[in-house]
């Protein structure tokens, strides 16, 4: 499966990533992928990713422009975004 991932604000700045295309083998992991599982998968990259995605910072997720919770399923072709709690207004 192939997904697009976007990072915003503090995440973008610290991870030095604003967007990436991620390709995963079409196995059981991919077919049961959720926001939380994807966070845990990306967190394995190194200590910084671990801290930013699975650490103390609250990270919110969106799929195809909709705010979702950690258990939301991710499908092939989805646009996923990770960001800190919003602070507009």
């Amino acid at each position, binding site marked *: 499966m192939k997904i697009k991932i976007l990072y915003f604000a503090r995440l973008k700045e610290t991870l030095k990533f604003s967007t990436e295309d991620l390709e995963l083998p079409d196995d059981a992991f991919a077919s049961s992928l959720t926001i939380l599982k994807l966070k845990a998968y990306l967190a394995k990259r190194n200590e910084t990713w671990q801290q930013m995605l699975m650490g103390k910072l609250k990270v919110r997720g969106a799929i195809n*422009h909709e705010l979702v919770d950690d258990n939301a399923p991710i499908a092939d072709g989805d646009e996923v*975004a990770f960001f*800190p709690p919003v*602070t*507009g207004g």
Partner: protein
Amino acid sequence: MAIRVQTQDFDAGLEIKLLRNARKDTGAVVSFIGQVRDLNEGDKVSQLTLEHYPGMTEKALEAIVTKAQSRWDIFDATVIHRVGTLQPTDQIVLVAVSSAHRGEAFKACEFIMDYLKTEAPFWKKEVTDSGERWIDAKHTDDNARERWLE
């Protein structure tokens, strides 16, 4: 409904006039303007930068206004939010709501702001004397939104 995300400033007077003149049975327009403060958590703020998620931001704002429209009998709403770099006293956001009577417009305007604060993908970074810092989300904003769930 008018939703705009832009770097340039807006004319709140003009936006209110447009809502007032759109229908002759309009009896009330309630508006809110948020602006940049030169002080935050005890530190002097010289500049504020707003980042957003193009594509999602407009959809999120539209969904919030639609929710307000289904809850109160309002005629129309305008939401303008600025992004980019701003200075103290610059306008950040305008929410204006029209209705027949004031009660509906007051409530809808506050509802839209409370949801915008907690669901629309904007992030603020400020410059103080000690450097740049991202602003953290406030629990008081979550609580303000929770009120509407009762």
